[in-house]
């Protein structure tokens, strides 16, 4: 067995095991909603504090046309920032892996920068780039960048020495060593980083929209809250949750298609 413990560790850390039986989880969810509904009716909570689930879904049935374009904007910000972080993060990870000088010059700064709470930069970015998409995409990028770089570096360094020796004994060029050996070996870890990043990216987009926006689900949540439209706020949260789940599932789907051989994927299929 080749030494891929680092990758496995990284994978299991960020990929929740889906051995939970879905039907049972749905029953639990339905039960919770029922308790909530009954509690809201029995105690007669006002709708501006805690609306009942039925009231929330009724509001959602009216709001969904209005929410759809805002959802689209948030999804766009998430995907743009996420793709940017992959396109920049993976090459930086490659640089860190291949060049010791680059590693020593850049890696400590990247790790150190993690102590800066990225969302605290949101007002600053807003001041620089205005209310448009740009500051949101940048916040998403900053949040998603770190897990992608770290996991890619771990993955690219996980090729066992004997694997590289084998490649060289075959007369492999540096490019062949990278494309045929190092990169495929690193993919499980890179995917683990991307799955973590996509979840963080949604959070990043919402927080950026809280700080200053005129559209997006984060904006809706803020405005609805200010107007005591709690049911609408819940509707936006539901939309957001669905977005987050779909994005994560999409990543998992791509991972499964790309890495059917990997232990983390095989574990899911059992």
């Amino acid at each position, binding site marked *: *067995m*080749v030494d*891929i413990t680092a990758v496995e560790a990284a994978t299991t850390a960020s990929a929740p095991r889906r051995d939970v039986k879905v039907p049972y989880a749905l029953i639990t969810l339905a039960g919770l909603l029922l308790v909530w509904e009954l509690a809201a009716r029995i105690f007669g909570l006002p709708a501006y504090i805690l609306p009942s689930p039925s009231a929330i879904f009724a509001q959602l049935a009216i709001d969904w046309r209005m929410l759809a374009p805002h959802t689209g904007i948030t999804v766009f910000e998430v995907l743009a920032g996420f793709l940017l972080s992959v396109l920049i993060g993976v090459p930086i990870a490659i640089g860190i892996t291949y060049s010791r000088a680059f590693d020593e010059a850049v890696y400590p700064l990247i790790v150190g920068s993690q102590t800066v709470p990225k969302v605290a930069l949101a007002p600053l970015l807003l001041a620089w780039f205005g209310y448009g998409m740009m500051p949101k995409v940048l916040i998403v990028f900053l949040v998603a960048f770190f897990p992608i770089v770290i996991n890619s570096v771990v993955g690219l360094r996980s090729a*066992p020495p*004997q*694997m590289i*020796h*084998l*490649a*060289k*004994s*075959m*007369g*492999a060029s540096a490019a*062949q060593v990278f494309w*045929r*050996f190092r990169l*495929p*070996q690193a*993919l499980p870890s890179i995917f683990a980083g991307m799955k973590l990043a996509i979840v963080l990216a949604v959070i990043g987009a919402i927080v950026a929209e809280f700080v200053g926006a005129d559209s997006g689900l984060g904006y809706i949540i803020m405005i609805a809250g200010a107007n005591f439209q709690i049911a609408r706020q819940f509707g936006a949260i539901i939309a957001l949750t669905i977005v987050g789940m779909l994005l994560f599932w999409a990543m998992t789907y791509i991972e499964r298609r790309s*890495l059917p*051989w*990997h*232990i983390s994927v*095989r574990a899911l299929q059992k």
Partner: protein
Amino acid sequence: MAGVQVADHHIEPAPRRFLDGMTGASAATKTIVPTTSPSDAYISIQGLSKTFAGRNGTVQALTDINLDIADGEFVSVIGPSGCGKSTLLMLLAGLEPKTGGSLAIGGRPVTTPDPELGVVFQQDVLLEWRSALENIVLQAEIRGLDKKAATQRAKELLAMVDLARFADAYPYELSGGMRQRVSICRALLHEPRLLLMDEPFGALDALTRDQLQIDLLRLWSRRKMTVLFITHSISEAVFLSDRIVVMSPRPGRIEKIITVDLPRPRRLAMRESEAFLKFNHEVTDVFRSLGVLRDDPEEAM
């Protein structure tokens, strides 16, 4: 090197090699004769040394290694852990630079991996994302060989090691012994003239190990190929080899070279024969005299 070119005063007795598939007197008498002049040997190692720069100064891994290996010979290198036998293999593979002496394969000084080289490591190092067949064909892809012919040959190799049914299996579906067989097939795909093996069966259970030794000898007898086999099992070395190079603990030196003139093809039953045990004893005695093996902890070194 011409077939039968008998030398008057060769240093080593001629290693005999009876080819499995060959019949008739002409084949039986065909032996490979090491040539008199060392530079004519297929592998020529002279005064070879290797030091590593460690944290506490330099470490002498190998010192003054002199060894000639004839074309088609099966040579085992045996020694205790840390005697530098794996380092010797890395130098021969052109994966580590030497620090002294000279080293040539087929008359060519070794600086980079020889194009006619196949390597098998203790770990099978199969790529988890490729099927058994694809793992073997990788050798041809990297070397830019014809893929169709390579696929055909890979299938033949798999059949030879009894894995034809597993061509499309992924490494995680194979046992340790099967994985190592696939990795041997990969090393043989391009019909290398030299096969380097670094404790290839060291991680396998005893029964699998026995079977793989037989498989290896069968593959070796099919075609002319020089094998350098690193091991720390005495009986494995005796069973497989034409010659056994016994190494001393660090700094690694050649302590003794033993010629094993057991007949080929070698059979499992041979391991109980008196002649086999004699060679076993001979190697054991070298290690006892070196203090590597001791019956009694108080025994003088």
